[in-house]
């Protein structure tokens, strides 16, 4: 006994050191990416000019408006978008105990897209204050949650990780089909905006949208962090979690609502963004070397913010002035990661 106790004492301190280093590194890198995202763009400004705009009094110049109304909101949106999608993916992976799921793969993003297409392409919501971010956010959330419920209903009848993925894919196709019909029927002017939105982009975020994202998403994230203990218990599966004292019914609902809220929020504003929700939780798990959600929730958020910022920078600058679709870049990022995980058998379906 005493020998084993001695052997065990270094464990806690050792497991605490690595997360701290990784947290520090990720924070620095994310901040650096934000700086780059503000500094680099199709119109070149010198660092000095940008510094003056940031620190000086509010002016009504072009440079001031580009920095304050385009680049900074976009840089923040990229970080928030990446963070929320990653958190959503982490939740879904825990919920389904399937490492390959994410909001995009499960069709949640498609559901959100479908509902947003109703708002953007049809005149159903015309009577309501036309196209406010609230309506499309709510629509996205409703779509996400609707698809989630259908996937859940099917998943509860047919067990197995592969089934889940196929169901998600099929839901994606179905929603895509309806969206395509809506697009075919819609007026030309509406289509262009929708198609652009559908490619996914962090551009065009307004400050009030950022505000909504920060307040709502921040609240959800705090709620999640407080729930990281039952989330950890959930890693062993529902029955074990229940046997350890987790109120399963309430908790399941909470996880799914949070996951759909986070993914829906981002999808409504930035369009469907693939792979971040699925790949980033793995990157976080591997770099932090743990499955402990007390570390992973903030960790995956930081990692997601960093990855989304990098992807957005590449999308904007790679073929500047043409802006590449964000989902293309995230796919280049995410697909190889998933394939590598499968090949290395880190992941079992």
């Amino acid at each position, binding site marked *: 006994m005493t020998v*084993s106790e001695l052997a065990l004492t270094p464990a*806690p301190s050792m497991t605490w050191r690595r997360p701290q280093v990784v947290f520090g590194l990720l924070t620095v890198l994310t901040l650096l990416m934000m700086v780059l995202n503000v500094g680099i763009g199709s119109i070149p400004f010198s660092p000095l000019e940008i510094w003056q705009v940031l620190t000086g009094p509010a002016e009504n110049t072009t440079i001031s408006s580009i920095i304050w109304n385009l680049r900074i909101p976009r840089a923040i949106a990229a970080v928030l978008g990446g963070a929320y999608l990653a958190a959503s993916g982490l939740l879904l992976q825990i919920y389904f105990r399937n490492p390959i799921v994410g909001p995009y793969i499960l069709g949640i993003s498609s559901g959100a897209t479908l509902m947003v297409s109703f708002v953007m392409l049809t005149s159903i919501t015309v009577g309501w204050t036309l196209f406010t971010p609230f309506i499309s956010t709510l629509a996205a959330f409703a779509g996400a949650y609707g698809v989630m419920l259908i996937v859940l209903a099917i998943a509860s009848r047919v067990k197995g990780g592969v089934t889940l993925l196929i169901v998600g894919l099929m839901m994606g196709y179905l929603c895509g089909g309806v969206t395509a019909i809506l697009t075919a029927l819609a007026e030309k002017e509406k289509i262009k905006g929708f198609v652009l939105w559908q490619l996914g982009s962090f551009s065009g975020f307004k400050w009030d949208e950022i505000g909504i994202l920060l307040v709502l998403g921040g609240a959800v994230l705090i709620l999640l962090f407080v729930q990281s203990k039952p989330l950890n218990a959930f890693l*062993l599966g529902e*029955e074990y979690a*229940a046997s*350890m004292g987790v109120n399963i019914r309430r908790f399941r609902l909470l996880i799914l609502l949070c996951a759909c809220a986070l993914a829906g929020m981002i999808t409504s504003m930035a369009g469907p963004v693939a792979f971040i929700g699925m790949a980033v939780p793995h990157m976080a798990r591997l770099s932090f070397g743990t499955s*402990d959600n*007390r570390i992973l929730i903030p960790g995956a958020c930081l990692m997601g913010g960093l990855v989304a910022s990098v992807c957005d920078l590449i999308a904007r600058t790679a073929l500047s002035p043409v802006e590449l679709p964000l989902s293309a870049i995230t796919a280049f990022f995410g697909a190889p990661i998933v394939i590598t995980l499968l090949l290395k058998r880190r992941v079992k379906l």
Partner: protein
Amino acid sequence: MSTSTTPPVISARALSVGYKNKPVLRGLDFDFEAGHFISLLGPNGAGKTTLLRTLSRHLSPLAGEIRVQGRPLASLRAIDLARIMAVVLTDKIAPPLFTVFEFVALGRYPHTDYLGRMGEIDRSSVVKSLAAVHAADLAHRPFADLSDGERQKVLVARALAQEPQILLLDEPTIHLDLKHRVEVMAILRDLCRSKGITVVASLHDVDVAAKVSDRVALIKDGGLLDWGPPEMVLTPEAVAGLYDFDKAEFNRHLGGIELRGDGDQGRAFVVAGMGSGTLVYRMLAKKGFAIATGVVHTNDLDCYVAQSLGADCTSVPPMEKLNGSALVRATDRMTECDFVIDCGFAVGPMNQANMELLQSALTQGKTVFTLREGGLQSLTESDHNRSIRCDDAIGLLDALDSYSARNALHPKALEA
């Protein structure tokens, strides 16, 4: 039956369990007493797991009531129940990137604060839990890399970290090799004896259950066939009925299952005694010979094994000298057999008559395989030398094989 004055830890009254109005087990009444090892036995699909899942409150009872420490199970808060009861399930769980220590620490759930932070007490509880399952050396290993046996021990440790008074286990020894099977059962028994934990486990091995359990519940045909101490409940008939045995018998004295042969390969007469015949009987049953044996005392190990294997056993009461009438009966049976095996038992005043039996076998011209050191030279052999000396079990096996081959090729040759 109850001798204890403390109330039962778990009691069920008129309990029906199952899924969505499809009852699997009905009308269950039982009391589990504190510190007992309770085994649920029954064929696959009988409802052992369903019962366990109902006791752990993952399924609601379809009817009736369960009380835990006198309180209705349904009314307990999840967290309070988790401090009383822990479970070990059959699901293969492999959460990634957990060390064994961290994994077991999850079991501290009902005792830690809202963020699950581990204090000194929690840490020492995890260490103690690991030590209780002889797995302290695994603490720093990744959980995902453990072997099946190690994982099962760690799963039990996780349950122990909850500091429960009741431990429910679903098939705790399934998929385990013999070493870990024995080790896990020994660990569970120790938990009962030393910590007073009530262990309720569904088991497949009747023989193991008979040896560790304080109570066994026989579950089959939608209900509880029988319930009580294994010494009372596990009769050969009850076990055969529980599993629909046809060619096997559970022997409560030997504590194991004997597999009978088809008996279509010919008939062997075994002259045995003092345990010398046990292995020979099993070998013959395995090879498909019908067995007759004698003359043995009824308290002889040979007698127990022979009877479980369905042998025609001529016996006399213990401590009695083999007498004439038993010898006559045995000789009659021997005459009907194709060949005779002498197990090489030690000869003393009580069983000297068995040598006469061998003598008459030789006189009758039977083939006699003998494991006796020095063979049967003291006996007069008939014109055809029919005694075949075998050094050991392998020698006997070879001799039997060549005998059957010859017999199959020339079935009449021996009779001629």
